[in-house]
């Protein structure tokens, strides 16, 4: 049994496997199907200052080895989260991390400040990379100045571990990573979904209500891996890798490329217990290769 624990700034993870925001609800939805406390962290659904209804249906299209979604940050707002959801999840014995989104730096900061007050939420993941909302989201994450402005505002009001989730829909993701690092981000996670599209040729209409959506699943993995490798070389803060991870081998690739931890997203839909299998698979691989600790393989590429 190799040591699997890792650290993301002050955040102690019992193992490097987390579940990605928007693919795992609040964890509770999966409680019957896998032990929630068996993974290093659960990043819950994107939360905004005010409630959001999200985009119209249809919000999803299946693609080759992946899917597009344009959910659009549907959530009941941070106050609802604090009052009604937090009490249900606060005693789950893993890092419960809230993904935070907004439409202005002030929104982000206010939402983050309210979550800062919750004792059992040790970190937030700042979503400056949602491709499915008009106001905010990815608009901030595609320029260094935009990304920096949000992180700067949040950093003033949020005192725990601050992870910033980066968009792959940029020319140079390393540059954005450096910009958020300079404003005090404790970690970066990448990648959010790649903006894509699909068309029903018989109806001559796009398959998603807002035409475009975010691509996820195994099809994005090579792109995500390359970006994680680039960013890990560019910043000193720990990198969290995600994008199409479906098995332990995928996860190990991300760790080798420089990720200190990984998130599993779309694969949760195919196998709700996949994150536990990935954890066990990493452990078995480390044992089989004589590694005492997962840290021995992080960033070896």
């Amino acid at each position, binding site marked *: 049994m190799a040591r699997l624990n890792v650290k993301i700034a002050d955040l102690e993870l019992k193992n490097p496997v987390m579940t990605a925001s928007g693919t795992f609800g609040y964890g509770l939805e999966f409680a019957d199907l896998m032990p929630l406390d068996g993974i290093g962290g659960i990043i819950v659904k994107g939360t905004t200052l005010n409630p959001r209804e999200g985009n119209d249906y249809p919000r999803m299209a299946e693609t080759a080895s992946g*899917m597009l979604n344009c*959910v659009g940050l549907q959530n009941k707002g941070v106050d609802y989260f604090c009052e009604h959801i937090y009490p249900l999840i606060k005693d789950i014995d893993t890092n419960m991390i809230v993904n935070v989104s907004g439409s202005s730096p002030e929104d982000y900061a206010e939402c983050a400040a309210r979550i800062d007050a919750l004792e059992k939420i040790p970190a937030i993941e700042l979503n400056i990379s949602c491709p499915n909302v008009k106001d905010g989201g990815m608009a901030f994450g595609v320029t260094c100045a935009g990304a920096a402005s949000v992180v700067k505002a949040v950093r003033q009001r949020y005192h725990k571990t601050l992870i910033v989730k980066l968009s792959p829909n940029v020319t140079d993701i390393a540059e954005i990573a450096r910009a958020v690092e300079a404003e005090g981000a404790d970690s970066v996670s990448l990648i959010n979904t790649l903006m894509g599209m699909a068309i029903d040729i018989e109806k001559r209409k796009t398959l998603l209500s807002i035409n475009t959506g975010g691509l996820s699943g195994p099809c994005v993995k090579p792109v995500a891996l390359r970006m994680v490798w680039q960013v890990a070389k560019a910043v000193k803060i720990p990198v969290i890798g995600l994008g199409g991870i479906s098995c332990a081998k995928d996860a190990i690739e991300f760790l080798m490329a420089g990720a200190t931890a990984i998130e599993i997203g779309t694969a949760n839909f195919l196998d709700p217990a996949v994150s536990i299998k990935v954890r066990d698979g990493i452990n078995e691989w480390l044992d089989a290769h004589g590694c005492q600790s997962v840290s021995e393989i992080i960033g070896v590429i």
Partner: protein
Amino acid sequence: MKKYILDLKVKQVEQIHQRYVLIKLTDDKPLPDMLPGQFVEVRVDGSTSTFLRRPISINFVDRTANELWLLVATIGDGTRTLAKLQPGDTLNCVLPLGNGFTPAKTGEKVLLVGGGVGVAPLLYMGAEMKRQGIEPTFLLGARTANDLLMLPIFNMYGRVYVTTEDGSMGEKGFVTNHSLLSLERFDRISTCGPTPMMKAVARYARQNNIDCEASLENLMACGLGACLCCVEKTTEGNLCVCKDGPVFNIKKLLWQD
């Protein structure tokens, strides 16, 4: 109701129609509790173009034979791959998912209205009602006599009335035109089928002040209420068909047309 991920064993695959197969699954252990109206997310192995699981409603649960029946319309690569399953194969299932139909109460007169492959969950609903000593009435619609699925089995559990669009069996027309609706009064209607049919049934129920539930089948990814892809607009905002449904009271749906 507790959910499971199970590798169920394929016992039989019966091509009951050109476009429909009946897959009978079993397990070494007793199958979990499942309610009429709930569904199963099945993983489709061996179809490169099928990425996500496919939600399939529970057609019937035979407790004596320890069988779960899935009635599958073969409309795409995924469902066509399912139709090729052989006895002895395994099918990975996440189940039971969603909320079922409200159970019938003793003395209630319940009408189960189905169309096309939407008749599937009504068989289990009717069978459970019969088991509790409540006789269901089925009203089933299809394009032609040939498209009416599993009629002999429906007949085992209650009175069956049918409509066909070409008049080849039962009354000609749509389910909502059937004379039964003007001759008898029901306390409750549960419906599953094409959306235009369910909307027409809902309209009839509303006009006649009959409690009515409809089972929806919006495009889904997770089946667990996590991804928020399968939402339906309701009086309570966007709700997940997979977790908050698939069965909704029509009062909650924005089907006022």
